[in-house]
């Protein structure tokens, strides 16, 4: 397949060959990193991280990835308030100017579709680091990488997606990748007001994926290979009352974690609030910190793929 220029949507990453290439590359980077034998293939190249919406973790992960590969970093942390955006500059102008300085851009924006629009005018590779309630493809790729690493990329996986499925962008990005697994079964567990949007439901139906919807976690606990729980995001609610009413509907504590299958994994894109009790952290099923580490290596593999 033709080499990708930008990484905007998970739908670009459905090619198994490309995935395998990136996964092998990420595993190699992880090994070399632990052995402190990383080469510096991106020496002299620069990544600009332009974040119109705060996300310290994603930004640091991209920046660490670039620096570990020998590249440099330009960073705009609160681009919405502190950059020329506050003066009314359009994102298009910002991209045109910044692409003159940087060899690759990681863009986080509060509006769905912003990354796609920016990529249209960007002369350098642009990576969507999350666009509103749209997509977060590097996170999704890291999630699939984690599932492959922990569970061996099985046929017939049972995956429970839990929490905010309406706004949960990581979930939206992950779904098309999950559908690639033969025989995958998906449990959609959410409060009624945070159900998965119809367009994703239709996608599942079109793909012939076996799924069920529920507002209770109970049925999924014993059967799931993967429990992927999301934070109910305060910033997506109009009023604090609305948020308070449903923020803690699903909480995984030790009691629930111990009931999961022995080899099941608990995933979370982090940050978490109350969805997973801290006591679960030492449970062998808790995969979320490993998942965060995997995201670093996936981003390294992607940067290397786009630039080397």
């Amino acid at each position, binding site marked *: 397949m033709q080499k990708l220029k930008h990484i905007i949507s998970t739908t670009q990453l459905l090619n198994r060959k490309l995935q395998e290439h990136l996964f092998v590359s990420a*595993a190699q980077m992880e090994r070399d990193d632990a052995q402190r034998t990383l080469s510096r293939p991106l020496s002299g190249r620069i990544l600009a991280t332009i974040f119109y919406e705060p996300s310290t973790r994603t930004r640091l992960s991209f920046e660490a990835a670039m620096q570990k590969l020998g590249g440099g970093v330009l960073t705009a942390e609160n681009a919405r308030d502190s950059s020329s955006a506050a003066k009314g500059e359009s994102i298009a102008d910002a991209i045109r100017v910044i692409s003159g300085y940087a060899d690759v851009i990681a863009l986080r924006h509060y509006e769905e579709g912003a990354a796609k629009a920016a990529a249209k005018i960007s002369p350098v590779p642009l990576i969507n680091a999350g666009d509103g309630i749209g997509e977060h493809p590097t996170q999704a790729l890291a999630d699939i990488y984690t599932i492959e690493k922990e569970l061996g990329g099985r046929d017939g996986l049972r995956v429970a997606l839990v929490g905010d499925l309406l706004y949960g962008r990581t979930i939206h990005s992950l779904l098309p990748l999950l559908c690639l697994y033969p025989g995958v079964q998906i449990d959609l567990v959410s409060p009624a007001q945070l159900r998965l949007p119809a367009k994703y439901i239709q996608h599942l139906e079109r793909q012939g994926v076996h799924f069920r919807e529920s507002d209770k976690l109970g049925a999924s606990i014993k059967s799931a290979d993967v429990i992927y729980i999301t934070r109910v995001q305060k910033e997506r609610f109009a009023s604090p009352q609305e948020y308070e009413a449903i923020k803690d509907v699903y909480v995984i504590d030790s009691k629930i974690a111990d009931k999961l*299958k022995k080899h099941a994994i608990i995933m979370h894109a982090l940050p978490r609030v109350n969805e997973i009790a801290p006591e679960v952290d030492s449970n062998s099923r808790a995969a979320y910190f490993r998942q965060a580490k995997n995201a670093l290596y996936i981003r390294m593999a992607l940067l290397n793929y786009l630039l080397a």
Partner: protein
Amino acid sequence: MSLAKKLRVEGRIANYDREFEGAIEIDTATGLIEYVGPIEGRSDLPTDGCIIFPGFGDLHIHAREDVSGSQCYKEDFVTNSNAAIHGGVVHVADMPNNPVAPIDDEKYAAKELLTQKSAVHVTLYAGIGPQTQPLKRHVPYKAFMGPSVGDLFFRSQEQLETAIANYRGRNVSFHCEDPEILEANKNAPTHEQRRPASAEITATEFALYLIEKYELIGKLCHYSTGDGLKKISAAKARGLRVTCEATPHHLFFDDSMLTEQNRLWLQMNPPLRGPKDRIALIAALKNGLVDYIATDHAPHTIEEKLKGISGVPLLDTYGSFATWLMTEHNFTARDIARVCAYNPGLFVREFLPAGLGKGFGLIEPGYAGSLTILDLNTPYAVTRESVRTKCAWSPFEGYTFPGSVRYTVLNGNVHQAS
């Protein structure tokens, strides 16, 4: 050899996470599992009373062969492979304490050439000694802490740490016996007292320290002490990348079973421990704290054993030992699939050559077409004549296991085990 392009096996199938009635089709040209689906009543092999497992993997064996050939009177890669097949083992990982030890790329490659004679796949560990450096290739390593069999060992913790510092981030297996504690007890009356539990526990603490400090992917070999298990459990909970082996002999025998008649035959390093340790080890294997059954298959001739050399041969009895765990200790078929197949498969996956698909340990399309088919209704009475290891004896002689290996399938080729 059959001309059929596919081997189809139907019956009760056990993966680490699922047990089901099903059919497996292996493409004998690629040697990989091509299809897993429902039973249709047309199996190429009779599997009545059997459970079909993903092929077992033994991560700790001493096949004895190296380029010098000087130890081949005990075992070689061919007889080792025969013993493995007899025991239902489809892949092994061979330890590096040979007279010509694989400690650099050249010696490793030379030893690897010898493994081509083996029908079962052999993963080689590279040795770590006081003067060695990591290989350019990605391989697993083995560090012997204290003196055992061979020359690859250390005299102190400081010496070991200096060497390990060069192996940051590597996959390192540890033989946990502290050399200074062994030295201090060397004049004790029995083998068990000369190598006390404290030697393993101290060495465990140090190995865990090294694994954490140097970001190693660590494995603790032939684990034997109940008190040490608690330290491993705490380390795992802290997120250290460490796994742990247990041998059939430490799970089956303890020092209360030693007599003047069997003492020499049951001499190994680390030695047998007390009944409490043994019970703790079985529990840990069941609850997942101990990850693998690995035999430490260590063939020595009968003459050598009578002279008091440490080590016992166990490949021939690997599969039947699994049936003992199922009958005597209520291990489920899934438990067995986990500790004998899935976890060993995970360990070797990153070191496998191309052509083995997704590797070993699961009955799934894309994985190696290697199976271990255990017959739970036909006991195996172990005799000296029945074993295929070159050293031609077994610590289980005279014992009758409740079940046996009916077939070992290697990449679609069927080997009748008995």
